[in-house]
């Protein structure tokens, strides 16, 4: 029994986000692509790294700050990224392993100065420190913080996307419902507040969640080596 | 091979063997030919009857019981005929006849092909 591609049984579909297979490898190089790649990696991993060093390695906030900055500097200078082999481990696991090794060897490294290398590192360590105060200790801080950072970046991307596309109502409804601190407002309340039908509230929420998923996937694809790793990390990111 | 034929062959062979064991009774050695003939015929008759039963009823227990019963009956009919000197060998003929009858009944149940209708009803 033969099937036509993209016909009755499958239909046309939006393809999986294009993964930049060599992005992580390109981060080890120089130039615009390398800078872009490093920015992606730093944006996702600086906070998980900091919290991991603070909570799992029990270092003070100053020590942790130095270690994290030193680690990412070493990442660039010592070509650590060039040693990544996707067939052996996921990038997240590799990075965490390198971080742990770096912390263990901290006493051997005399120089912990922050040095350049082409990547910008705007890290709000004070904010991260405040977050730690409210975070119960977890078995795998790195993993949890990675999940949190992926979604936090996704939310930022969603906000920017909605602003650029004039979808402020959609974003507002999404933020008030799905990001609510305490009790969530009812659909009827949101409908009355924004002057839209209740069915629109349902549709806007569905749309925003779809877009958030898409944007988080896009971020994920920028820090994984290829589709197999991306799919595996997807399960970790969204799964139970 | 159908079941009555299996019964016929098994009965004949077992009857022949049973008859041959009479050689260990010196008093009847002179009658060996007749004993062998009679024992084989007895075995064949019991075998055919067991085969006919096996065509209709597929049950090892029924085969054993029927074979034993008919084996005993025909062995009795043979044992009723006295030897030239007037001796009857009821025990020597009926007991082995009973056991061999059961064996014949068992073999007709296990071997041979049943008719199509019985096979279908079993299926």
């Amino acid at each position: 029994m033969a099937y036509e591609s993209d016909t009755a049984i499958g239909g046309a579909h939006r393809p999986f986000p294009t993964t930049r297979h060599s992005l992580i490898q390109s981060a080890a190089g120089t130039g615009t692509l390398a800078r872009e790649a490093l920015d992606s990696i730093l944006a996702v991993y600086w906070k998980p790294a900091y919290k991991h060093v603070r909570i799992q390695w029990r270092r003070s906030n100053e020590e942790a700050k130095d270690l994290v900055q030193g680690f990412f500097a070493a990442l660039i200078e010592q070509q650590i990224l060039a040693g990544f082999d996707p067939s052996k481990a996921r990038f997240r696991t590799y990075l965490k392993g390198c971080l742990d090794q770096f912390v263990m060897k901290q006493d051997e490294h005399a120089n912990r100065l922050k040095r350049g290398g082409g990547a910008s590192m705007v890290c709000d360590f004070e904010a991260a420190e405040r977050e730690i105060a409210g975070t119960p200790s977890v078995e795998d801080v790195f993993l949890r913080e990675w999940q949190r950072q992926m979604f936090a970046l996704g939310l930022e991307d969603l906000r920017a996307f909605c602003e650029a596309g004039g979808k402020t109502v959609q974003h507002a409804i999404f933020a008030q419902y799905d990001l609510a601190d305490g009790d969530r407002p009812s659909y009827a309340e949101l409908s009355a507040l924004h002057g839209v039908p209740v069915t629109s509230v349902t549709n806007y929420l569905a749309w925003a969640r779809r877009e958030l998923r898409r944007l988080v996937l896009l971020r994920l694809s920028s820090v994984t080596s290829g589709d197999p790793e991306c799919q595996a990390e997807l399960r970790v990111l969204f799964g139970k | 091979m159908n079941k009555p034929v299996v019964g016929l062959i098994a009965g004949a062979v077992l009857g022949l063997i049973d008859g041959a064991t009479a050689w260990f009774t010196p008093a009847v050695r002179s009658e060996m030919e007749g004993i062998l003939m009679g024992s084989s015929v007895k075995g064949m008759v019991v075998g055919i009857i067991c085969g006919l039963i096996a065509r209709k009823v597929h049950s090892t227990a029924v085969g054993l019981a029927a074979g034993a019963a008919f084996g005993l009956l025909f062995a009795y009919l043979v044992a009723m005929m006295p030897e030239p000197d007037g001796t009857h060998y009821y025990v020597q003929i009926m007991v082995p006849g009973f056991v061999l009858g059961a064996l014949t009944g068992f073999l007709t149940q296990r071997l041979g092909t049943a008719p199509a209708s019985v096979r279908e009803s079993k299926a």
Partner: protein
Amino acid sequence: MSFLPDRALDHLRDVTEVPDFSDTRYQLEEEIGRGGMGVVYGAWDTQLERRVALKVMDAGYVINQEAKLLAQLEHPGIAPVYDAGTLPDGRVYYAMRLIQGRRLDEFLRHEPALPARLRLFEKICEAVAFAHNRGVIHCDLKPQNIMVGEFGEVFVVDWGVARAVDAAPLPTAGTPQYMAPEQSSPGRPLDARADIFALGRILRDLMTNPIPRPLAAIARKASAEDPADRFADVQQLAADVGRFLDGLAVMAYRDTVPERLARFWRQNQVLLLLLGTYLAVKLLLYFLAPALK
């Protein structure tokens, strides 16, 4: 960027993961399980008014592969595919029969008798053999991917990493404990013996103590490291298990003389008893002949 608390994070992970079927004929109910490449949900088909299972794939280009493979495998032991489609977020799903039953590993906790377990195993082999006959290997056979229905029916599920015979395996396919060595060799084409390896491991899981030596030998042969040492096909494996169930000699094990004699006795008890009785009677009559005169 404001801090995302745990509660909000978990909520977002949930709501972005749950697929949106509002534009389809299906009403999502509960999550049933997670397998290779996707999540399975129970759902209500509003058109045909029946419950179905919906498998939503993670993503990807081989999105139709599992559905296409399954649609070609029409067998009582393989859940039929009813429908397939694409969600607004690009994820692909397919609808299939909802199997009411238990996973094999759960079922085995309540089914102690070895013969019943082995008969179940024969049914598993039937389904797998059918797939092999159609040129498809499962590549992820394990107790968690076998369902036992309430009437003892067996279903082999989760064909997410199934491949055509001679295709290279997916890099992340399979479960280590049940994965044939050749499945983790990059670029090495697979054949049906990869599934036979897994079936050997499953057979080992089914065995109860004391483990009969012929059965252990069958399991060992099936899951030999070298494919050349395994059964050539699933039918041979199933036939050997069948022979074991019937009390016959099996291909994978050479009986010792006492074992052969014991088997002969078991298979011919009535016959041997009758012959023994006849001999005993004859001997008795011979020695009692003077008394009987």
